[in-house]
């Protein structure tokens, strides 16, 4: 009997939608659009394009998760939601990848993201003009505003009635979350003491029932996959709807090459269970995130495109950016219990815009941020900002106070630098593809920003009545690597994600960011994808592609 559950029925290879055999694919003879990667961007595109009547195939390297049987309330067992395949990391500040920033499986990074859902501000799109750093985007905030509105409505973002920073003042479509956790309360009280405005975080997490999904139960395991389906992910929202509209999702299928015929792409090659298949399509959209998209482009070089596809500018893989994401753990006299509630329930963007007196350009967001034992212990043991390790009796005694810590986390802008990049390593993976080599180092401005934020976080912890006990050096999110621009010599794609070099190849997702902003990126990822979808539907109906 067909399983009719709205999410899990797609995990079965069911009648008429997806055959168990990849030789009987729905669009075997050619699709209109082939999307590589079912992450934040890929899922929005699949839904919008299928709804418009296009024949859409989504090819996803990872599994089609079933929240009830694949997720768990456990940190260690849910690491597998991430892209764990080995990447070589290099540079003065080698990045922590895997669960820290890379998703794998239908839903991509949205399956284990924290759900903080912010817009970029006007200045984020014009950092060169305004502050003389970074680069301007080829679009302005106003170009994206309608798509932010659309996405926020479509996934029922919860948030405050009034939002104090940036051009969007609220209200959010769904009521603000309530109650908030002790850690978030302490953060807001401390902010108030120091004259810093704060809000309850806008979240892609339900505060009331929506579309057959229940509100959040505050179990706190957003980074382990939401079991009740209260948190948005492409897996539970856009993909099921895309399939209803006729899209086919090929999970556990790793795209290993983009195929070209002269100057156009014709489709992709993918591997499933050791066998290679071809998927033809009129348009290919690469939505494989900041590391895999450049790896695929560089690996797909041909005599016609000797330096990799879409790389005549040389910018493929360049200027990748994480957010700086130091944490301060404050030890308090009273219990806080960081495990309770949605991890981020309060934030401030008081320090978001450039303030010349601070001695650096751009700014950041601060989050009241929960923590579970594995995450906290491994951070304070192996990622300390002072470069020391914590182990033995010191670690045990620090963790016995687990319930007495508050935690604040930085999301800081990191300026683009072409030396921070994805290249191909010599070593190969099981598909014969070279491993990605990811090189990263902070610049002087980035370091000053971090120093400033650590001082603010320390003062906030002190205003709570505690003292800063552990400062952890970390990064979050990734952006860039195939940046957009109007100049084909200085960028890989235009503002719609269309490759300057290849008219029927598109790139979507965080990889097309020009700068990182100082806010969590996924609202912008999804808004850009919705904009690309609208453009593609027009172009394809006019037979322009």
């Amino acid at each position: 009997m067909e399983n009719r559950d709205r999410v899990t029925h797609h995990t079965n290879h069911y009648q008429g939608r997806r055959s168990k055999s990849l030789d009987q694919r729905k669009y075997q003879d050619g699709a209109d659009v082939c999307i590589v990667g079912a992450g934040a961007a890929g899922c929005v595109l699949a839904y919008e394009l299928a709804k418009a009547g296009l024949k859409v195939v989504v090819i996803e390297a990872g599994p089609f998760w079933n929240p009830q049987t694949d997720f768990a309330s456990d940190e260690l067992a849910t690491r597998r939601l991430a892209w764990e395949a080995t990447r070589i990391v290099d540079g003065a500040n080698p990045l922590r990848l895997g669960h820290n920033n890379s998703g794998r499986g239908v839903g991509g990074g949205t399956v284990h993201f924290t759900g903080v859902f912010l817009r970029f501000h006007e200045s984020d799109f014009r950092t060169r003009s305004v502050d003389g750093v970074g680069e301007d985007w080829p679009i302005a905030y106003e170009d994206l505003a309608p798509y932010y509105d659309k996405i926020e409505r479509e996934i029922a973002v919860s948030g405050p009635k009034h939002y104090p920073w940036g051009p969007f003042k609220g209200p959010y479509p769904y009521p603000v979350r309530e109650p908030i956790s002790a850690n978030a309360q302490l953060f807001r009280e401390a902010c108030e003491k120091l004259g810093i405005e704060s809000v309850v975080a806008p979240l892609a997490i339900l505060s009331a029932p929506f579309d057959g999904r229940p509100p959040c139960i505050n179990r706190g395991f957003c980074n382990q996959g939401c079991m009740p389906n209260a948190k948005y992910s492409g897996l539970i929202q856009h993909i099921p709807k895309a399939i209803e509209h006729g899209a086919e999702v090929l999970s556990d299928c790793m795209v290993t090459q983009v195929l070209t015929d002269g100057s156009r792409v014709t489709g992709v090659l993918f591997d499933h269970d050791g066998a290679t298949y071809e998927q033809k399509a009129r348009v290919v959209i690469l939505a494989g995130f900041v590391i895999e998209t450049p790896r695929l482009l560089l690996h797909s070089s041909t005599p016609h495109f000797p330096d990799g596809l879409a790389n005549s500018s040389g910018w493929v893989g360049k200027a990748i950016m994480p957010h700086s994401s130091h944490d301060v753990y404050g030890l308090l006299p009273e219990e806080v219990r960081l495990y309770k509630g949605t991890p981020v329930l309060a934030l401030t963007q008081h320090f978001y815009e450039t303030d010349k007196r601070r001695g650096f350009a751009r700014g950041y967001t601060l989050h009241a941020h929960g923590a579970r034992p594995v995450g906290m212990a491994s951070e304070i043991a192996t990622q300390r900002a002072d470069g020391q390790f914590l182990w033995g009796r010191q670690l045990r005694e620090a963790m016995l106070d687990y319930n007495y810590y508050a935690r604040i986390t930085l999301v800081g802008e990191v300026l683009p630098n072409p030396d921070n990049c994805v290249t191909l390593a010599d070593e190969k993976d099981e598909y014969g593809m070279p491993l990605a080599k990811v090189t990263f180092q902070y610049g002087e401005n980035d370091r000053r920003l971090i120093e400033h934020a650590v001082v603010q976080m320390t003062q906030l912890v002190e205003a709570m009545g505690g003292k800063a006990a552990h400062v952890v050096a970390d990064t979050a999110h990734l952006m860039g690597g195939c940046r957009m621009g109007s100049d084909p010599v200085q960028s890989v794609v235009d503002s719609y994600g269309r490759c300057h070099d290849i008219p029927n190849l598109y790139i979507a997702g965080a990889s097309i960011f020009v700068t990182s902003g100082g806010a969590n990126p996924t609202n912008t990822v999804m808004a850009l994808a919705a904009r690309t979808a609208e453009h593609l539907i027009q172009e394809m109906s006019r037979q322009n592609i």
Partner: protein
Amino acid sequence: MSRRSHYPTYNVWDQHEHWDPHTRQIVAQRRTPVISHSFLTRQEAMLVQTLAGVLTDEYRQEVLTFVTQHIDQSLNSPVGESQRKAGVPEKKVLYRLGLSGINEASHRLYRRDFIGLKQPEQEELLRRVEKGTVPETSAWQQVAPQDFFQKLLYDVVNAYYSHPLVWSDIGYGGPAYPRGYVRVEKGLVDPWEAKKDGE
């Protein structure tokens, strides 16, 4: 910093009937770890278990056996290591060399295997691995002591703080689906959560 648990009578496992079946099964397996190993030799496994004890200041063998089992499984898994620093050998090689390096250094300094050292000696040797000042034996010419130390500490800490006995020590509420939390604000606890000693 605390010398002892704030919650001596709390046992998170008492709540397991309220957990979803998938999570319950995962945590239950940690309470009864298997002793056979697939990648580590018997000697290596004993060494890992001893190192884990020193790194976490723990003596309960049931917890340390799970930590060792977790590391053994990760070494035998085809899944990647998320990231590896340029110049550092792959995890299997790093462990094999690092573990030999520990015993080579132990013999150089104390003429005995690491397992046979007194705890202060074990701590001192590990401190030298951590700082990179361990005697330069053949293994340490092939891998940097700090690279091994960081990976080992990371793996040990990840497994150790996944054990329900350790969750109980620190008063962590543990798995919380389908029940969730009702009382999340300052000073509030749900009836089943850990309560401070005597309250």
